[in-house]
């Protein structure tokens, strides 16, 4: 593999793209499959493009360079009582802002107010012709031009390399409270997820960890209110309130994907709570598969201990009509149903006419 280039400014990033025939960005390496293409392709590390460019708590927005470690951003926001409410994962793991957008992986908090796509406001990016472009805006509301910032969410770096991004932020909730509700199997868990999601109790996160011990609920808001709401929830679905240290440990472990072996392959699958049982059934036939369901039953993370299980997972997801993305491990980037209308290739050509970035399926 060639040594990576490390541009120090957005302008240098554009120069780097122009001087390579084929190029792929590298961030913190938390989702290595995104950049695992032909070793002959020139790597461009974003590590030199790091730091907050603008942060104005009164505007509820910040702008940071794409190589900024997300944990630095989260820390800067926390100092001013603010947060990215979707709980970006892999803070300790070193994920970067650009990788967060390209990978499209949000954490448990995405359940209440939405994920990366719902908080991204603007981008500065280099297109396949090496042009440095700025689209979207820097204010919390803007409807001018097509919404490329949203489009980049989950685009795996196939359409452009981010140099900088602007996000909306929210005030950090005054406190949180975590409950565990035991459930026998995925159908029972799904019932609780849907039941709770339809209440007016405003759960902040609804997760079904891979340990098979049921549903974990997080409430967020003013402390005294949460105790009362927790009482109501447990009145309907018996369970327990986790002590603060146990809760903190649970969410940190989840954020860092501590439940999945570091060496294991990891895939993200879009599902519905109504499909959880079918997915669990299918995964019983995939050797060594472990599954964590998040976002109220709308996303599943599947860890696979053996590399050859990826092919089986791909087939099983296809049969269920589900789509996934491989984040770690070697196998196809897209798993299961691949929806690929002609427009996808046309937009790829519009943004990357010479095919400098990896192809949609690389």
């Amino acid at each position: 593999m060639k040594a990576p280039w490390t541009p120090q400014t957005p302008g240098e990033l554009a120069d780097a793209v122009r001087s390579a025939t084929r190029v792929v960005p590298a961030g913190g390496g938390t989702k290595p499959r995104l950049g695992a293409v032909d070793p002959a392709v020139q790597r461009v590390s974003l590590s030199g493009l790091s730091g907050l460019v603008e942060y104005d708590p009164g505007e509820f927005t910040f702008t940071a360079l794409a190589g900024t470690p997300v944990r630095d951003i989260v820390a800067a926001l926390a100092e001013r009582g603010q947060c990215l409410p979707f709980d970006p994962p892999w803070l300790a793991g070193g994920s970067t802002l650009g990788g967060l957008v390209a990978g499209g992986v949000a954490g448990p908090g995405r359940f209440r107010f939405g994920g990366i796509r719902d908080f991204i406001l603007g981008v500065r990016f280099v297109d396949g012709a090496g042009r440095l472009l700025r689209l979207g805006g820097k204010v919390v509301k803007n409807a001018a031009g097509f919404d490329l910032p949203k489009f980049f969410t989950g685009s795996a770096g196939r359409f452009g390399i981010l140099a900088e991004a602007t996000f909306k932020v929210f005030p950090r909730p005054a406190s949180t409270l975590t409950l565990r509700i035991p459930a026998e199997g995925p159908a029972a868990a799904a019932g609780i997820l849907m039941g709770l999601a339809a209440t007016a109790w405003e759960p902040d996160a609804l997760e079904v960890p891979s340990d098979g011990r049921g549903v974990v609920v997080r409430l967020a808001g003013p402390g005294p209110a949460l105790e009362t709401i927790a009482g109501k929830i447990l009145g309907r679905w018996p369970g327990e309130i986790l002590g603060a240290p146990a809760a903190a440990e649970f969410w940190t472990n989840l954020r860092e994907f501590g439940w999945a072996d570091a060496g294991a392959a990891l895939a993200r699958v879009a599902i519905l709570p109504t499909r959880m049982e079918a997915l669990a059934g299918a995964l019983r036939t995939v050797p060594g598969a472990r599954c964590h369901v998040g976002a109220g039953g709308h996303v599943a993370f599947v860890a696979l201990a053996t590399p050859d299980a990826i092919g089986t997972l791909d087939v099983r997801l296809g049969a269920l009509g589900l789509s996934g993305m491989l984040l770690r491990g070697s196998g196809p980037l897209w798993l299961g149903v691949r929806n690929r209308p002609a427009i996808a290739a046309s937009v790829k050509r519009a943004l990357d006419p010479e095919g400098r970035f990896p192809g949609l399926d690389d």
Partner: protein
Amino acid sequence: MTDPIRRLAALLPAERLLLRPEQLAAYESDALTAYRASPLAVAIPETTDEVVSLVRWCRGERVPFVARGSGTSLSGGSLPVAGGLVIALNRLNRILRLDPALRIAVVEPGVVNLAVTQAAAPHGLHYAPDPSSQSICTIGGNVAFNSGGAHCLKYGMTANHVLGLKAVLATGEIVEWGGAGREFVGPDWCGLFTGNEGLFGIALEITLQLLPRAECFHTVLAGYRTLEQAGDAVSAIVASGLLPGAIEIMDALALEAATAAVHAEYPPGCEAVLIVELEGTREAVACERVALDAIVAASGPVEARPARDAEERLAIWKGRKSAFSAVGRLSPDFIVQDGVVPRRRLGEALRRIGELARAAGLRCANVFHAGDGNLHPLILYNGREAGALERAEELAGKILKLCVAMGGSITGEHGVGVEKREFLPDMFGPDEIACLERIRAAFDPLGIANPGKMFPAGGAPALQHHGLHPLERTGGISRE
């Protein structure tokens, strides 16, 4: 009839294809009434298959088309293209599926915004985006414009609530993206499509996310001697860590209009009224209202009135939502603008808008989504007075440039349309506009989908038909 028109007529029963000038007159403009254009025909499909065949006819005959919902666009988005086809979608107004367990509604594009919330209400759910026009505007129009409303800071705009889309692109291709799930895999195609202003194609089926209706609201109306004080109150609320569902301001002229129109009563002698609403669980609102009331009390209002019951709350919102049409009573004509400025510069922006209006000799009312810095200056003018429209437009243009210069945007929610297309270069450089044009061309290589909108006039290939439209040349149509 010429061959092309005959082929068009074969796609729909005669009563759903309007060709006569007197039938077309009703479709000549949208809510930006200063502009008019006469289409070749208006087609009124009743099924999505008919929409697809109409789009494919346009593609085959190289005839531009404009999708139309309720025609409430304030930026000329649904203004017809002269000689083009208007595809009126109001009859595609079925709610195809409402699934309370998954909290989604799948709707056709002609479904009216409020109808979604009404259908969801029995299940304790609602559809969050609430433009003031919600009782008439359609979901298709909302998707095309990424419409907003009073609750954007907390809940986002239309795009944040569109989970899935089926659409026919200007190429004739039918695409389906997303679905009932909150999470998707791959690039965010629904996000890219939403806000396309009708330039990519026509949305045929839209899957919307529904949210549980908040258990409890706390709505406060506070009057202030000056606009600055109201603006400072907004900053204080935002700095406090509260996340209100809505933060709105109306200025003196807007208050005068609302008072006359819906007999709303506001504290006397105020230059501005602030409306703040908390929403959430009963327990959370009980805690947060104490904090909010204290901040408002400390912000020096002439009077602060919390709504004591649901009726008082609705009255507050009725006054606010009627403000646009109410201003219509003060003046024969008005232009609604839609700029965004950084929130902390609201006071400064309003002061400078006031100065610009005085210099132009025009009255300007302000109603705005203060929580997200989205201004709606309403410029009053008399269209029958020579040069008045031009002066009003000139003022509107200065206001937009002011917003951009202050680090904001030329549109928060009404779109660029025809009205603001000349200002796109104030927002974006030539490279960015070229990039947007390449994306547009990917969706619409022939430039037949709503040409002449969003991009500065030079970039609208299909508007540059010189002389007669191809169908006029072949004798298919004629201008009256």
